[in-house]
């Protein structure tokens, strides 16, 4: 494990989904737990339906740029997972929330959402593991749809690279500062079973696994 970047988590999604908030919450919780963190973000257009990504680097890194492939990816949306895939590596675990936000470009062309299998196939050929769950679908009936980023943090605490950090999931709950809705969403995310997406599913769409 590199001291420069003990753990790197990439958060990606669409403007308005809460990507930046999730990353900041995560980073602040780890900082409060005594970790040195560096949170990077790029925004300015995030209100306007654009792609948004943010990342948390735990370790000595000075620069706000990912050091190689992220260990965990928290993708709030499948297209955004596929867009970020070129940066993934064989050890990257990708958590994908299967909730679709149709890009306007597709709607203009009279097309619907692209094949999720194909999108995840692209992720699978670059990443170590791809784990999926419809967290948005589970949160919506509870009126918690806007808290999907927090729920994904719950799921993140179950991943081995996080566990290896030695920080308790309670540190994240504490960072939610008594927000009951956020805590419910976090708990739901932590309890949800994510399904392993099998990369062979992608090959039927003509995508060949590279490694």
């Amino acid at each position: 494990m590199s001291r420069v970047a003990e753990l790197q988590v990439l958060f990606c999604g669409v403007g308005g989904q809460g990507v930046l908030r999730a990353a900041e919450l995560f980073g602040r919780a780890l900082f409060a737990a005594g970790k040195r963190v560096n949170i990077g973000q790029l925004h300015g257009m995030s209100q306007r339906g654009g792609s948004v990504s943010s990342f948390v680097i735990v370790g000595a890194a000075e620069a706000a740029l990912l050091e190689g492939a992220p260990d965990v990816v928290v993708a709030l949306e499948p297209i955004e997972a596929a867009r970020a895939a070129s940066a993934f590596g064989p050890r990257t675990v990708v958590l994908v929330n299967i909730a679709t936000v149709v890009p306007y470009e597709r709607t203009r062309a009279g097309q619907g959402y692209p094949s999720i299998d194909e999108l995840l196939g692209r992720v699978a050929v670059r990443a170590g593991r791809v784990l999926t769950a419809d967290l948005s679908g589970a949160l919506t009936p509870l009126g918690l749809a806007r808290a999907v980023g927090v729920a994904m943090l719950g799921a993140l605490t179950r991943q081995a690279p996080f566990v290896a950090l030695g920080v308790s999931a309670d540190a994240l709950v504490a960072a939610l500062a008594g927000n009951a809705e956020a805590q419910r969403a976090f708990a739901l995310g932590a309890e949800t079973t994510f399904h392993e997406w099998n990369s062979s599913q992608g090959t039927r769409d003509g995508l060949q696994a590279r490694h």
Partner: protein
Amino acid sequence: MARPLRADSALLADGGEALLLGNEAIVRGALEAGVAFATGYPGTPSSEVTDAFAALADELGIGFEYAVNEKIAVELAYAASLAGARSLVAMKHLGLSSAGDPLSTIPYMGVGAGMVVVSAGDPGCHTSPNEQDQRHVADMLHLPALDPSTPDEALRLTRFAFELSEACKLPVLLRPTTRVCHARAPVRLGPRRAPTVRGFVRDPARLLPVPVNARRLRGEIEGRLERARRAILADGAAFSRVGQGRLALLSSGAAAALCADVLAVLREHGLARELSFLRVAAVHPLPVEWLVEQLRGLDELLVVEELSPFLEDALRSLTSVYGLPVRILGQRTGHVPTHGELSREAAQGAVERAFGLPRTVEHAPAVAAGPPVPARPPILCSGCPHRAAFVAVKAVFGDDALMFNDIGCYTLGASPPFDAGDALLSMGSGIALAAGVSRMLKQRTVAFLGDSTFFHSGMPALLDVVKEEADVVTVVLDNDVTAMTGFQTSPLVQIGAGKSGGHGDARVRRRVDIANIVRALGVSHVERVDPLQVAATHGAFERARAAKGPSVLILERPCPVFLHREGIENPPVVETAPAQAPARTQVDNDTCRTCGRQALGHRCRQPVMKPFERSMARARSLEVGNDPPRARPAVAPCASQCPLFLCIQGYATHIAAGQYAHALELILDGLPLPEAVCRVCHRPCERVCVRASTDEPVAINELKRFVVEWANEHPTAVASLPKDAEHGRTVAVVGAGPAGLAAAYDLRARGYRVALFDARTEAGGLLRWGIPAYRLPKDALARDLARVTQAGVELHLGRALGANLALDELLAGHDAVVLAHGAWRPGALVVPGEGDARVVDALAFLERAGEGTASNVLVIGGGNSAIDAARTALRKGARAVSVACLEAREDMPAITSEIEAAVDEGVRLLCRTKVSSRQNGGVLLCDVEKTDPRRVDPGAFRALAGTERALPVELIVLAIGQQPDLSMLEGAGLAQSAAGALAIDEGNRTSHARVFAAGDLVERDRSVTSAIASGRRAAWGVDAALRGSAEAARRPPPPRPTIAAASSSFAPRRSDPDRRVQAPLLPASTRTGSFDEVEGRISEEAARREAERCLVCGQCGNCSVCTEVVGCPAFYVEGGIHIDRALCIDCRLCVSTCPNGAIA
């Protein structure tokens, strides 16, 4: 604490370590330096600096304001400095150029208390149009400059910058870049200092840099920079070295943080242990003495920096001056990229190559093949009210007008689907760009800018437009805030009670009125409108387009995202009762993209076209406005009454959109003889036009005529219509009048070989022999005939059925026969009594073009033939022409405009009049009354006693209708109806399986259009009989108009009443001297205006208005069209524009 400008509470912590954004760290550094005044203009990536001050300033007793622009911000900060207050001014890199004027002289004059200029750079153009390197500005303007590499360093350097500024009396430039501004990292906090204001020290010899002072002051700058260098060297925080080897890496700014990480990673790999690392945050002036000392002990130095070789060149210069043998690598040697943001891979690659290290970067394999992941470029938010402005401007100005955009949210108007932006330059530049292009090209142009940009630099540009009377429409899209950079307040509004705009209750108070400013600048055409009032917005753009010189439209509606964040209710567009919760907007996919004509098999072959959609949406906006949508008829009343079932709203919409070729395609699709029909149609469509409920019916036939004549001038613009493949079957058509020509043409399109027979010497039938040339010129008719013959119809003239043409013979040589030889037998009218006036039949009279007219002529009849005969007689020299008919004038069957033209020419109308008897020298007339309002036959009229009077007449023309002559078909055994006409079925088939009939021979409605429709129906009937109904149905015939189809409860009113266009007419006094065409065509401008009057009543399937014209990202396709609940804020713009009223 007020939203949206929350400040991190850590900014006020007493000490320890906090997780701060780079921009927040700068604010904290300033607080630790006792800053007393802060200002700036928002701009990514600098905005959080000013935003944090906005949130904290009042509480801390610090002066703060969002300045109107960066130049003013620098002046305000300098003023505070002169007043003895430490001041900070923040902006993005572009702002530094905007502030260049004051900033270039301040170094001459010197600051009072410390002054720090934060100018955030954006390598990689993440949110900027360029990535200029401000270090060169620092050098040029003699500003000390510090480049922080991390948030922690940003804090320390900001704190130091105030000390430095006071030490050298120069403003200090702090130049963080995106990766520092927007990184959140641990920061060590020091103690805060209370703001102090020491007072203004008068010093005219320094503070008035008139030339005599300026020359002296210039000399002092060197000393100031020298003091700065010494202060930097003494402090020692702005440069450092790790390692003592003879190979070194030197870096500064965000690149230095990257290099530190790269070295750490290399060392974890056991590499580069002997590599020294030099960090230099003080990029101007350089800590020369320290650097020379370091360089002296080095063999090789790699300089890693972003954007330009600023440090590298300075170091090369040092080696030259001091004679140092070190070899310097960097951008000049190709080791480091010369532009763009430096990536980890590039930095590591540079180190590895420079020092011959093994590659440690894992190079990822190429991205998997396949279509690209769909992009998500930023677009105007769903619910952005100013989307309505772009919808309207494109509907009114179309795609031809040049439009100039500006910095801010409205830059996004230049993206699809609006494409409303031909160039974009800098803050406020849209106005000057529009003015300059307008001046060179002599055309009206459009400029867009937001409220904040208007204040920033739009006002002077607008003054220039006024001064030069530039032909520019300036559109101010006023949303109350500076939305793009994070909803900062503009001079327009203030939130709550706090002076700085960050605190207190969530109320928005308007402070400045843009309209007053614009008027005061001298603009006389100024309109303000809520963009979501769609009809008013279209009207405002319409007036702006028509105006000359400067026009300014101010579209006012606050940013809904801002209102939501502030917890302020979005003002309603339509007042609703409080109890009535507005329903969520949704799409009815049963009416979405449906076409009532298509339901009858009439498939529209047109592609979905944006100008067409825009015109349709515009018509709908003007009609519906902000009302709930109205249920629309499946087929517009006009089309339902058109014998040819033409898609009238379709071609009107194309004309309104300027797409004349497409309009013609729609016309030709159902009408092979457009030249004739656009002149002589009796216009049943206009009688049911819904527009009459607002003002007058649309001048539909004038529109058709315009398009037909436009096509004559643009023959190559018209695409040929699709035809079925030839299949060898043959049909004979008898009679080359409108019905026969239409049947022949249609059969050719269906792949038949067609022989067209006519008894006369020329084709055209009634069009040639019955309609005078002043209504239908012979050359126009010739073009229609050419269309038919060029389609491959073989014409056989001089072949008369019953004379030299036999039905049996035709049946023997062809698969089917269509009889369309018309109704030429004069009706029998017995005028009692004897007299010396001659009596002729109207058709015979017209066929000879009025040859043999007399001086006094009486025409009997009230139809078009009567009016034609009367006007023909006038043209042949008759001196007194009367038309006598039983009907009242308003009931005459003749076309109203023809009657009016006849009266204008001097024809005397004798309505409700009967010719009771002939006598020598003329006739006796008497008045009649109608006894049965439901009947139209002569038996329904009764002569009124005592009204008899004499009329001198030499020629009586009988125009009382003609009957089909079936004598030549005797023996063929064709069944007849009870009324004595040929009996036909719905496919115009007679009782003979291979004989069909069309036109006046069988139709009760004796109009040219009905005859053409009848011919088309016969062609369909033939096709159904010979090839089967499935083949035939691919070209369905026009359905027979029914009154029921036209009666609809759909009766909207448009918000813009206007008279219909009048076609130009020859002056009545000159008309009767010739047979020149009386009615002319309308101009292109008039045609477009007239077409825009169309309400587009019927449903249309050729539509993607919501996604393509309105372009709201809340819409998505999944089977049908749907609205994403999470994105839709129920602004109802889509409701006001949906052509089918399918969104409610």
